[in-house]
């Protein structure tokens, strides 16, 4: 309860600061809308159903993209962590893929994978992949070698070592990567939509901005993305509290 109260207070402070900023700088609503203007526009967008229509699409891209990206990243991360040879072979490609701006790659990926939900999930997964893979690798390597020797003295096989020592040891670091990854998933879904979707919050941003010249609606879409990001991040934190020993 205290946490919720603190969050609400900080939200209120943020809204007040936003309002003060728009008043002080005198920026018009079509450049930086005041919070109550965005709020009113949100109410209209929710009432007409347009907000949910786009949010549902983006939410599914985020969840599927994150799940796919995280699962593959943890798998690859374990391999990278356990074998120096694997790391040497794979890491140039992984780093290269991370360094190329996804915004440039996304349209190509969209075409290669048929331009539907699959393409967008893949683009999102690609964006999510890197921090989680690296976190997993670092976490796996941080496993206590003394515990590893103790387990080997009990007859643990390499796969048992991975499952019972390295992965549990790596969980705190992996969850750090998952926190970063889940917020990147939101960005990833929007970038993927910009590459060629027809619905979604990223598309709504474009429609509001270019088609409707409706800056408040654009802010509604941005705020919705922020809410999604915050909520998913909180879920990861809750999961971390449950699964990782403190």
């Amino acid at each position, binding site marked *: 309860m205290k946490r919720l109260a603190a969050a609400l207070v900080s939200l209120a402070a943020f809204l007040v600061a936003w309002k003060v900023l728009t008043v002080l700088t005198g920026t018009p609503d*079509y450049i930086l809308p005041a919070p109550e203007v965005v709020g009113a526009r949100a109410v209209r967008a929710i009432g007409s159903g347009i907000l949910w229509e786009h949010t549902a699409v983006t939410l599914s891209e985020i969840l599927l993209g994150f799940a796919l990206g995280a699962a593959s990243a943890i798998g690859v991360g374990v391999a990278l962590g356990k074998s120096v040879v694997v790391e040497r072979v794979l890491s140039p490609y992984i780093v290269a893929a991370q360094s190329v701006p996804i915004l440039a790659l996304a349209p190509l990926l969209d075409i290669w994978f048929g331009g539907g939900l699959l393409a967008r999930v893949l683009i999102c997964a690609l964006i999510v992949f890197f921090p989680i893979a690296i976190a997993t690798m670092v976490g796996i390597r941080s496993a206590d070698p003394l515990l590893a020797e103790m387990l080997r003295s009990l007859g643990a096989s390499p796969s048992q070592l991975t499952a019972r020592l390295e992965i549990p040891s790596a969980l705190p670091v992996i969850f750090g990567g998952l926190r970063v990854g889940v917020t990147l998933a939101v960005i990833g879904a929007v970038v993927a939509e910009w590459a060629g979707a027809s619905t979604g919050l990223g598309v709504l941003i474009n429609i509001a901005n270019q088609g409707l010249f409706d800056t408040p609606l654009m802010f509604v879409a941005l705020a919705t993305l922020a809410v999604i990001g915050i909520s998913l991040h909180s879920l990861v934190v809750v999961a971390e509290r449950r699964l990782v020993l403190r």
Partner: protein
Amino acid sequence: MRLRRFTTAILVLGLLAACTPAASPTPSASLRPVKLLLGFQPDVQFAPFYLAQQAGYYADAGLDVTIEYKSDADLARLVGDGQAQFGVMDATDVMISRTAGIPIKYVATLYDQFPVALILPAGGPSGGPTPAFLAKLAGKRIGTPGKYGSSWHALLAVLAVGGLTAADVTIREYPQFNQTDGLLNGDVDLITGFRNNEPLRLAARGMQVDLITVEQVAPLPGPGMIVGDALLSSDPAIVKAFAAATVRAQATISANPQQGLDAAIVAVPTIASDRTTALAVLTATIELWRGSADAPTGAIDQNIWAQGYATMRKLGFVDGSVPLDEMTRQVLTGG
């Protein structure tokens, strides 16, 4: 020693003289610096602006014009907020942005004819754009850059004449503006495009096409010059001067397209890589500027605006809360 100092002084002065820009024949009061925003990216169609800059038409009008390229959304906001003085924008987008609260006005026409058309492969079903013909577009696959802008408005306006909405057709978006590829490889049955551009490029790649233009079925006003309300009320004189200088450049190019092409190449050297097509595009563009007149006049056709506004209201793009007379202001009197 003295000789060396003297020689150095001469050299320095010579360098300074060489560095000063070529002075105009009449060094008068300094020019007012203004910013002009053109859409998206440099193009041969912006030749009038390049020519007016280079040939001194703007200077004669007392203006030092700097050109930048912005997307339409940013363009409207920047001009409305006064961060840029002039812009070029689609009339339909002016209606929407003005209704959304952006304080701009359309002050002079650049294109007397609405440039967007529906383009389909030649030899298809004929019969002109009657409502019956248009109704047969139901179920077709249509390529367009996106669900925004004059192409989208025109498409929906034409479909509405056939009793259709976007839901009755399959829309395929080409955010990279390469919908001609879709038409060439058969991904779509027809596309939206600019009359002075896409058909020429398609012909260059071997496809002959038919056009469905809006003035046949749902008249819409073409692109024009915009300014912010603040500038228009504080300094209408320079708005008129700018518009006049631009129209003057259009007239020059109408009479001598090559001059426009040369000016465009100076401003955008890459245009020279395909002079033939560029000249063809420019020639076709001149036709759109002129319409039925002998030369471009910049006059705003209130009749077409009224019809276009009504169409946009019917399609739901504007809700009518901002009346038409707040959207335009004729600054060039007498055409």
